[in-house]
Each structure stands twice: as structure tokens, then as C-alpha cells.
């Protein structure tokens, strides 16, 4: 049994005077895929933002590799890849420029690898086109290209399948499954019907939380 990457202990979250969840405890182990489930407004996005370190609206303990996350902020951030609702793509820059800028603060890499990553998301030939001329699905693919070069052990993916076509969704399913086989951990939310073998479920319902292993 390997050490958990991320551990949540008695996590509680209240937003705008409404309690989304409480006493939520779980561990994210390496080589696992976890799907966060719940109805609209149940706090899936908020939970992922809390795990990523974007939201302060929580109480409880979050441990990264056994240490309080706040104490190891930078090393934690280096190890986590978060993709949110908003893809983080500048409409005025080309896919390649966007990718370069996104990687710069973490792990700069040559254009060759990035171009290849873009090509594998189906954006070959679009490298130099400003992203505002791309469709929503194509912009999403630019953001997803990071997954093809990412070395972060933990991926937090919030609604990444939005506006991706069916074949794209299937390819991403594969990617996540392979990532888990390599030993990476993936936590994701989606309203798509996604089938990844061995997926753990973390269900958020108001007042009660189930986590099945």
C-alpha cells in the first residue's frame, strides 16, 4: 500500500452561509482515478478548487504527503495540475504561445514537444492561429494538451470534457486510465457518461457524504 498523496480530514465547507459538506475525509492514493459526483450546486467545483488551493472557504485539515499543505505550498503546487471550468487560454495568443506561457513557471520545454502535444489533441495546423478564432472545444483542447506533457503526480480536472466531441472524450478516458496505470492520481468531475475502469466515486449529497473504495 503506497502513501496517500493528498489527505483530507474532516473537511468542511460553507459558502454564502450555506454548508456544502462537512466531516468529509478521504485520501487520494497514487495510481487511482476518483470521480467527484453530485447534483448541480452540490459543491463539486468548490471541492476541487479547495483541493487545488484556490478556495479558502474551508475548515479541517489537508495534508500533502503527510504534511500540512499550507506549509509546503510551493512544492504542493509543483505537484498538482489543475484544469478548471475556465480553460486558462488567452484568446489573443496562439495555442503554442499559450502552452508555452502555461508551462513557463513550472517546467519550460521546447516547442517541439509542445507542438507534438498540440498535434495529438487534434490541433495540428492551428499552432499559430490566435485562440479567439478557435471553437470552444478547440480551446479546451489547447488546455488539455498540457496533460500530454504533464509530470505532476496529481491531476485535478474540473469538467474538462465540456464541449469536447465524442471521440475526444473517449481518447481522454484512455489518457486518464493510462495515467493511473503509470502511477499518477486523477480526480475529476464531469456530467458526461465517462467509463474508466476502477474509478472510485466520491459522492457529495447535502449533509451526507459517501466515499466508496
Amino acid at each position, binding site marked *: 500500500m503506497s502513501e496517500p498523496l493528498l489527505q483530507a480530514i474532516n473537511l468542511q465547507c460553507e459558502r454564502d*452561509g*450555506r*454548508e456544502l459538506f462537512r466531516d468529509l475525509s478521504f485520501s487520494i492514493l497514487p495510481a487511482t482515478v476518483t470521480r467527484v459526483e453530485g*447534483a448541480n450546486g452540490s459543491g463539486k467545483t468548490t471541492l476541487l478548487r479547495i483541493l487545488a488551493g484556490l478556495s479558502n472557504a474551508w475548515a479541517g485539515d489537508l495534508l500533502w504527503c503527510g504534511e500540512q499543505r499550507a506549509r509546503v505550498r510551493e512544492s504542493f503546487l509543483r505537484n498538482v495540475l489543475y484544469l478548471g471550468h475556465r480553460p486558462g487560454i488567452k484568446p489573443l495568443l496562439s495555442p503554442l504561445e499559450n502552452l508555452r506561457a502555461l508551462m513557463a513557471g513550472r517546467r519550460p520545454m521546447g516547442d517541439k514537444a509542445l507542438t507534438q502535444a498540440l498535434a495529438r489533441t487534434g490541433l495540428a495546423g492551428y499552432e499559430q492561429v490566435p485562440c479567439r478564432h478557435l471553437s470552444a472545444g478547440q480551446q479546451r483542447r489547447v488546455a488539455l494538451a498540457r496533460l500530454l506533457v504533464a509530470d505532476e503526480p496529481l491531476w485535478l480536472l474540473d469538467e474538462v470534457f465540456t464541449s469536447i466531441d465524442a471521440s475526444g472524450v473517449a481518447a481522454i478516458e484512455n489518457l486518464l486510465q493510462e495515467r493511473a496505470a503509470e502511477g499518477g492520481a486523477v480526480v475529476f468531475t464531469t456530467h458526461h457518461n465517462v467509463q474508466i475502469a476502477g474509478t472510485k466515486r466520491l459522492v457529495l*449529497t*447535502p*449533509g*451526507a457524504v459517501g466515499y466508496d473504495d
Partner: protein
Amino acid sequence: MAFDSFGAFLAMEGHGPYVWASYGVFFVLMAVLMVGSYRRRNAVLQSCRQPAGSRSSRAPEPDSDTAPAAAASFTRVDVSQD
């Protein structure tokens, strides 16, 4: 007493209007602030005193999640009923 009469006290040798205007504004604003804060607290106390169920801003009780507020059906609404 620094003044000979009550009239002299009010007049303050011609500076009365300035002095009394300043004090007036001071007392009025402080009174508004104090009475306003006091009333507001009492209003809040009153609303806390009301039975729990009658307050609309409350979040659903934890034990009510077995019956969520009617699952969405997305059936069309008959607009001719009014």
C-alpha cells in the same frame, strides 16, 4: 460659571450659533448612531426569537436530504392557466 446669565450662555458673545450648531450636529449624529444600532440589534434579536421554521433564509436541515425538493422534470409549463 463663566457666563453671567443664561442668555449670555446661549449667545456666547456672538459665537453661539457656531458652538450650538457643532454641538447639535454632534448630539444628533451620536444619537442616531446609538439609537439606530440599538434598534437594529433588537430587530435581529427579535428575528432570532422567532420559531426556527418560519425563517426563510435557513438552509435545509441535514436530515431532510432523503426528500430533495422535487427532482427536476423539465416538463413544459402550461402557460394558459392564468
